[in-house]
């Protein structure tokens, strides 16, 4: 295990002010937008279901900052965070959650399928585990075409129990593919503690050796720690060193989905993890590294304003035209199955 320590002092900063501000901003954008989505759910403006990543922002933000613009991201149904972290528009994300024309998917996909190819977000997949083999395929493609693109594939601890996880890890390792598998271990497989359904303490890291990979565990609530490990794994993949499997320990502040108040979690556990909220602690670190309060506040004001503006723009966007229902089953734009 190589749990990342934050033993870097302001005098010996390996990350730097500019990157730290990007990391903070990205976390903040995700937090504010997720909370806005939560509020709008209560107003019945966001429909269907949604799986919020509040509490888990540091992981998405750190990888988002560490990746190149040409790299590929694959997300799960809890994918708003990773989509935003690659630069997708807030209006596009909120609009999709609301079923509006301005949505990233024009209203056809919904919360669980956010995709933004232009920003390297190759989809959010709502069948547990399915996207690991697909992400592996994108990595194979990059290797085959010699593009040096790296694929990052996010998934939860519950994914480590499904067969597709094993199939993808095995083939990625055998083919030495440029991919980073990131397990966000938030301790619960939906409503069930992960410890009740896996026989090992670390559902991803303890399996790494089965694929000849290093066992990597990182504090998923520390954006700097995740950023460092992300850089390392991405570089390894880009340099032809093959895949990595990273287990980032974190906690979701809300329940599994809209329908779940999360009451199965012991209050003292929730309290302990809320005290480790990645955002206030990162804010404190910015101050520790000499970033002025006025800079931080200005950024916070900007992010709040951006979320407000995205909300209003999405609200003002028309609902999708029913004309799109029979569009884009096929590449010719249509859905004809007969002549």
């Amino acid at each position: 295990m190589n749990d990342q320590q934050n033993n870097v002092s302001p005098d010996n900063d390996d990350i730097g002010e500019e990157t730290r501000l990007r990391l903070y901003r990205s976390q903040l954008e995700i937090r504010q937008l997720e909370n806005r989505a939560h509020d709008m759910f209560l107003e019945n403006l966001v429909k269907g279901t949604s799986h919020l990543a509040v509490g888990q922002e540091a992981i998405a933000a750190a990888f988002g900052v560490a990746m190149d613009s040409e790299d590929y991201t694959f997300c799960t149904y809890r994918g708003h965070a990773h989509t935003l972290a690659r630069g997708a528009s807030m209006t596009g994300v909120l609009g999709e959650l609301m079923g509006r024309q301005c949505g990233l998917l024009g209203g056809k996909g919904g919360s669980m399928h956010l995709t933004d190819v232009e920003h390297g977000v190759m989809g959010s997949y709502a069948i547990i585990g399915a996207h690991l083999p697909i992400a592996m395929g994108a990595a194979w493609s990059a290797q085959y075409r010699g593009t040096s693109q790296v694929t990052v594939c996010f998934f939860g601890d519950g994914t480590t129990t499904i067969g597709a996880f094993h199939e993808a890890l095995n083939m990625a390792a055998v083919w030495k593919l440029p991919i980073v598998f990131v397990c966000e271990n938030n301790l619960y497989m939906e409503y069930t503690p992960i410890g009740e359904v896996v026989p090992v303490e670390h559902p991803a890291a303890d399996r790494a050796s089965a694929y000849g990979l290093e066992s990597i565990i990182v504090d998923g609530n520390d954006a700097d720690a995740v950023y460092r490990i992300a850089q390392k794994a991405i570089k390894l993949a880009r340099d032809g060193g093959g895949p990595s499997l990273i287990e980032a320990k974190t906690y979701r502040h809300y329940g599994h989905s809209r329908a779940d108040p999360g009451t199965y979690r012991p209050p003292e556990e929730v309290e302990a993890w809320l005290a480790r909220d990645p955002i206030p602690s990162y804010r404190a670190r910015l101050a520790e590294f000499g970033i002025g309060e006025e800079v931080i506040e200005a950024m916070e004001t900007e992010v709040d304003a951006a979320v407000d503006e995205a909300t209003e723009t999405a609200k003002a966007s028309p609902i999708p035209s029913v004309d799109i229902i029979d569009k884009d089953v096929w590449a010719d734009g249509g859905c004809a199955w007969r002549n």
Partner: protein
Amino acid sequence: MAKLTYREAVAAGIAQEMRRDENVVLIGEDVAAAGGVFKATVGLLDEFGPKRVRDTPIAEQAILGAAMGAAMTGMRPIAEIMFSDFLAVCWDIVANQIAKTRYMTNGQFEIPLVIRTANGGGSRFGAQHSQSVENWAMAIPGLKVVAPSTPADVKGLLAAAVRDPDPVIFFEHKALYATKGEVPDGEYVDELGKAKVLRQGSDVTIVALALMVPRALKAAELLESEHGISATVVDVRSLVPLDTQTIFAEVEKTGRLYTVEENPRLCGWGAEISSLVAEELFYDLDGPIVRITTPHIPLPAADNLEDATIPSVEKIVQTIRETAG
């Protein structure tokens, strides 16, 4: 024209496309060094090398996931699922991922891939290596479904499937691999979504697919020579897109429709064609539509049991004799 076996036509079709486009690659279990368990990919590793013709682990989700991820990012993969029965272990990737992703993302992706798979019975393999599952694929919006009956169609339709910008499931019939036929030399590309009229008659129209096509042709000969019934035979070739125009035109001429299906009875492809004909050609029909199918059972293995199950030439002749009056 050269005389090739159905299995040689598979390799010929793949090779033609791989020579043309370096983004065409082939993956699957034992497709490279072994040349495929049905020997349908013999010679491809030698010609194109291990980067483009790649053996995989036994991992059907990984095989089709890899193909999908590659297709989404600019490649044109051909992935083999050794037996079509095995599609059941990776059906999520087929039905939920490959088929839906373009639509769900509002057209952000094209997914130009081909899933080749050995389909159908007649080999005494038992119920887990013999099913005809083309009707599973036909039921999923977003998949194109092709099942050739001759070596020429294998080469031409496989080339068309590789060039198609959408996902295509290409059902090769394992009982046809050893059959021979003329195949056009040089570059040969057919068209998806076109049925073929193989025989013109005046009394009944028989619509068949894959292994059922040669049986329908043989049955038509016997009906003509021994029973004075003149039959048209249409090879559907492509279930999606479905060439209803060709089928309708032939049903209009004879007023009788028989489908010959190897898939089990319920929701077989013939049910869809029958329903379309009933809705749109009702007043051109001179009698009931009749479906000749495998019964709604898992396939048995023993020679006589399997033979009694899958529609045979005799079964086709008998059914048409009894109902075509």
